[in-house]
């Protein structure tokens, strides 16, 4: 079966997940993003690639950073951007997801950027578009449930490549609430595809998916063991809002065991970088001194996120 994200020419048709996306496409996105970083320094921060196209930001779940960076990326490509917060609109009145999509297609949408609490919602929209012969409309997954957050994974890869150049000699640790994290799944898929020899996940048993090692990662239940000698530390946010039941003791206790402090970071390589997808819970998963420290690249991640999203949208919009 054809990869549903690629068209018959092998080009990116939708961006739904990094799992199963070929390495050459991943690399092409990162390569394309590089020249877009320069646009932010121009007097006119705009390129004409998506002139006359309409991008609909379809957010069924709250987000500030992701929605804003998608909006900036689309606007820098000269697209018209429409933001829909579905929490407060038709879905609340009972309209189905695909009815909403059909209505927006009738408004000449060219691209949907979709965030949804249900895993698979962007895929459902992509399949619906294909089944109804609307191949000129593209879908970008901006985070679906616990499944995937591909542009976050891509901007993380861009950040790692920016600071470490080569993937094939790195040890990367992903720390924290992997269970609820679509970001972690996208990171693991991309790191593995790009040839990182050792990906570690570090966290309490209650916050790691069962059989997580089948994703090709080494599992650690001890920060001191897991952080030893790593090149990259990717912290995850503790997703309290997705937790049902008692998976944790108190945030204070979580911080004591799993929080990234300067003392624990000292176990990593001296030039290790610290990443976080945001929003950060300071004093829960990460200490302020580390978050604002010399090894943190958390704000460059945000800036690179715009260029990476421009790359994805311009590659999709070209066919």
């Amino acid at each position, binding site marked *: 079966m054809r990869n549903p994200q690629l068209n018959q020419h092998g080009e990116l048709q939708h961006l739904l997940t990094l799992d199963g996306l070929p390495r050459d496409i991943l690399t092409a996105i990162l*390569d*394309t993003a590089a020249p877009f*970083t*320069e646009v932010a320094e121009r007097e006119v921060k705009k390129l004409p690639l998506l002139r006359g196209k309409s991008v609909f930001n379809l957010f069924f779940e709250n987000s500030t950073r992701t929605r804003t960076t998608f909006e900036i990326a689309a606007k820098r490509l000269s697209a018209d951007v429409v933001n829909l917060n579905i929490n407060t609109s038709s879905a609340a009145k009972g309209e189905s997801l695909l009815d909403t999509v059909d209505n927006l297609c009738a408004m000449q949408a060219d691209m949907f950027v979709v965030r949804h609490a249900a895993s698979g919602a962007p895929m459902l929209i992509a399949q619906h578009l294909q089944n109804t012969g609307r191949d000129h409309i593209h879908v970008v997954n901006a985070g679906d449930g616990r499944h995937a957050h591909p542009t976050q994974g891509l901007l993380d890869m861009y950040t790692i490549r920016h600071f470490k150049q080569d993937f094939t000699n790195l040890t990367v640790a992903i720390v924290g609430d992997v269970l609820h994290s679509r970001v972690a799944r996208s990171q693991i898929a991309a790191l593995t595809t790009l040839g990182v020899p050792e990906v570690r996940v570090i966290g309490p048993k209650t916050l790691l998916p069962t059989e997580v090692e089948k994703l090709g990662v080494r599992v650690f239940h001890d920060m001191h063991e897991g952080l030893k000698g790593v090149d990259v530390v990717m912290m995850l946010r503790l997703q309290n809002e997705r937790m049902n039941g008692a998976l944790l003791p108190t945030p204070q206790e979580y911080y004591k065991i799993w929080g990234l402090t300067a003392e624990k970071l000292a176990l990593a390589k001296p030039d290790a970088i610290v990443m976080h997808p945001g929003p950060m819970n300071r004093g829960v998963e990460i200490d302020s001194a580390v978050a604002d420290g010399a090894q943190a690249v958390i704000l460059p991640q945000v800036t690179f996120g715009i260029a990476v999203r421009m790359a994805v949208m*311009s590659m999709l919009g*070209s066919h």
Partner: protein
Amino acid sequence: MKELDAEALCRQLAELIRPHVTPTTALVGIYTGGLWLAERLHAELGIAQPLGAIDVSFYRDDYGSKGLHARPQKTDIPFNVDGAHVILVDDVLYTGRTTRAALNELFDFGRPAAVELAVLVDRGSRELPIAARYCAHPLPQPLPREQNLELQRDDDGHFTLKLTQAKPATR
């Protein structure tokens, strides 16, 4: 078409430009051949302003039909464009569409006092009202469409002009 001596044409082009160089003159090379040429001219003419580079991938008018160029490069304009005397440098002038794209991109950096175009070879077949102020070799007859003419640079930095059969469009 007789064999063209790219090295000799490059020296001629430098001499055509030399009398018009002022302290505000800046060179901007268009990727890839134009940038090689601009690097050479920049050194040869002792231009004071740092050398600029433009990749027109994001400004092409065929993005809608041909998509994005596979590996776009970073555009880099390291001087103040406002009030500058800019000379765009390209290896071969053909339809004029690349020059149009480069002009649009340049103006997103500011308002130059003047923009001129310098090319090694003008192969004819213009589709836009664009002309080179400095041209080392205008071809007397336009080259046939199916032929591709571009500058090449070997490992020693030596220039040649290569004529090839254009690849048929894949889609």
